[in-house]
């Protein structure tokens, strides 16, 4: 029976190829839509997670009260012990120390005296350890405007706009003048390896990105960091697990009532992104719900019509003695087959496109005049677990439902009438 149906489907492209293509297209759009919306949701938090909050963040209690002032005298110490501990207790997450600092970047003339200088906000991350996740997470390679990524100690990146304003060239010596964690003046030479564009106004005015080991040395912060950020795999913020991790971690240090004891907060604790995420989730739910509903109507329509167009054939089959129930079953069976085939095809294609959009993204900088840019200008989709089945709701469900409804008319019509429809 099944072989019969499949053969029939394969031999009549009108019965198979066309509905499968339509269902496939519908499913593909659904999957793409779903992944895209998830990507947009993530984009909203990604920028702040990547740059600032992490999915979870550890600072000292005192630092956490006034993070805006970048009080590195209150930095976390003993990170050489703390980070491995975090990896041991929660190995699936990525734990990265960072230092934030302010200062002046000073470019000398050939006598080693100040030629130009400007204020910078610095971010020190692990740039140089082989296999460091930070370069990719910050999408630094994509943000390079001139030059290249730092490859050895002592190399830095600055905002292109800053470099342009100061009129400095690649591979020039740049001296960072800042304050050490103990408040002394820190002076450290770097080589300007490249310039980046972030696409975030404030950051493009003057940001410095350096390797954390260099900055630990420059700011006299050996074994210290402003903060340790924790990231879930694939940048996928998992609220429940983040909360669990926070509770577990803070319980360990609960009894130490020291202002230098580490405290963990989640992305949601930071009032901005947290509230925003709740809001976005509500809207995303509505959006996806409506979309699937509408797509179901479209595909239900397809199922309906593919039933209707075959009334003639059904008439013949009834005339040669097939029972109405059997014909109905066959119709549903075919709808199941086309729906399944279409859904699989559509999900496959949808996932394929989504994967491309997740990995490569769409670079909208062309629409924005400026060339390379860090964050919001590369739009990305995100494949959530729902992407694997969500397309089947309209693809299979709606198609079959459409057939079920249109097939009912088999029972209500006279054989002679259906046969007549074949004739005409």
């Amino acid at each position, binding site marked *: 029976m099944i072989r019969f149906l499949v053969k029939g489907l394969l031999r009549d492209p009108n019965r198979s190829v066309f509905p499968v293509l*339509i269902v496939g297209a*519908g499913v593909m759009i659904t999957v793409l*839509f779903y992944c895209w919306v998830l990507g*947009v949701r993530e984009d909203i938090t990604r920028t702040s997670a990547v740059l600032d909050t992490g999915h979870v963040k550890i600072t000292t209690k005192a630092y956490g009260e006034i993070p805006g002032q970048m009080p590195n005298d209150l930095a976390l110490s003993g990170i050489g012990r703390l980070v491995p501990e975090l990896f041991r207790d929660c190995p699936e997450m990525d734990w990265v120390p960072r230092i934030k600092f302010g200062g002046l970047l000073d470019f000398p003339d050939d006598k080693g005296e100040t030629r130009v200088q400007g*204020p910078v906000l610095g971010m020190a991350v692990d740039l140089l350890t082989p296999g460091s996740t930070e370069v990719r997470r910050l999408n630094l390679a994509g943000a390079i405007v001139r030059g290249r990524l730092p490859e050895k100690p002592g190399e830095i990146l600055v905002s292109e706009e800053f470099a342009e304003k100061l009129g400095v060239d690649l591979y020039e010596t740049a001296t960072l003048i800042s304050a050490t964690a103990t408040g002394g003046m820190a002076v450290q030479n770097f080589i300007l390896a490249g310039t980046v564009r972030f696409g975030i106004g404030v950051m493009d005015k003057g940001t410095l990105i350096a390797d954390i080991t260099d900055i630990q040395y420059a700011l006299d912060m050996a074994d210290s960091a402003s903060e340790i950020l924790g990231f879930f795999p694939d940048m996928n913020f998992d609220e429940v697990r983040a909360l669990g991790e926070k509770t577990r971690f803070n319980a360990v240090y609960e009894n130490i009532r020291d202002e230098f004891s580490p405290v963990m907060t989640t992305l949601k604790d930071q009032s901005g992104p947290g*509230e925003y995420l709740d809001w976005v989730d509500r809207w995303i739910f509505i959006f996806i719900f409506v979309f699937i509903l509408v797509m179901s109507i479209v595909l239900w*329509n397809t199922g309906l019509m593919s039933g209707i167009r075959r009334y003639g054939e059904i008439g013949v089959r009834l005339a040669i003695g097939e029972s109405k129930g059997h014909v109905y079953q066959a119709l549903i069976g075919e709808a199941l087959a086309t729906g399944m085939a279409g859904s699989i095809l559509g999900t496959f294609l949808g996932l394929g496109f989504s994967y491309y959009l997740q990995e490569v993204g769409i670079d909208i900088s062309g*629409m924005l005049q400026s060339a390379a840019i860090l964050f*919001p200008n590369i739009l990305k989709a995100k494949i959530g677990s729902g992407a694997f089945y969500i397309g089947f709701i309209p693809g299979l469900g709606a198609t079959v439902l459409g057939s079920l409804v249109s097939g009912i008319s088999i029972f209500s019509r006279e054989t002679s009438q259906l046969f007549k429809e074949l004739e005409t």
Partner: protein
Amino acid sequence: MLIIKLAVRNILGAGLRTWLNVFILSLAFLTIVGVQGLLQGFNQQAMDAMIDMELGGGQFWHRRYDRYDPLSIENAHEKMPESLTRLIRKGEATAILMTSGAIFPEGRIQSVVLKGIDPAQTLLDIPSAILQTHGEGDIPALIGSRMAKEARLEKGEVVTLRWRDIFGTFDATEIVVAGIMSTSVQSVDSNQIWIPLDTLREMIQAPGQATLVVLSKNLRNIPPDDGVFVFRDLDFLLKDLTAFIKTKSAGSSILYVLLLFMSLLAVFDTQILSIFRRRKEMGTLMALGMPRTAIIGLFTLEGALHGVLALAMAAVYGVPLLALAAVKGIALPSMTESIGLAIADTVYPAYGAGLVLGTTFLILITVTIVSFLPTRRISRLKPTDALRGKFT
């Protein structure tokens, strides 16, 4: 004319299926207009807020002033030229003087930007009048709610402020928080302390000086630059916001494409089917002498009518919906502060004529194209086959 009549009759005759397609199309149309309207409203509001609170109708900056370089303000103040002081006297401009200082909430140093503003000014929406009504004693200060949170200051609280006059001599005194203003414009809030202009001038011994001059929104004749104070227009001052909105618009366009795709799929599907099912009708029409092109025209028109009906339907249920959103606004949570733009709690969507017309045009064109594509098959149709319900 006949074709139009026929097309309308056919499409309306198709009943429920037509209305489903029309509904889906109208939904796509409304979503595009709605989301784009939200972004435009957002843009408009952020722009208005920045203009009202900070930018006015443009500003004259002291030539050494750079809003992104906190160190620049130390040397960026001078006496204003007569052209600007005249505007200030007429109430068409107001001067702002800046200097850096430090406050010591709970014994911890925090650097701040001190901004002097004329308490009597009404040009900016900053509630500077609070500074005027304050009595003798400590210097009254106006801060934003973000600043209040950062420094953990409350209204009426007293905090030590230290600064230097322009000659370098330290000075310090207590200031009292006379008022806390709530504003979406971060640049008048974070790390900013507003005090009366004349008090600040006295404090740093810079009588008659200003860092920048804000012009009235209604000012038509902008005086020429004098070399010391340089005019910055709104395009320059709003550059970051414009770039941000552009990014978001480009980002949401992907969603529009998918939505359109979905609704066009429905139309496409319907067209294919109706062409398949109405072979005999076509044969009849051909037999009666209607040229193929006219039949193609008829079917294309039927498809395209979906678009027209969708617009009509969107108008029926969409206009009240969008209007409600525009009046009531859409509540936003407090957004990430790192963006550094003015983001209000509630966004009121703004649907420009260009947006509505553009989207209408887009829907009509794409629907027509999608309706036309399946009809090409008709051109290969032989009337005899068609009459018998066959395709060649």
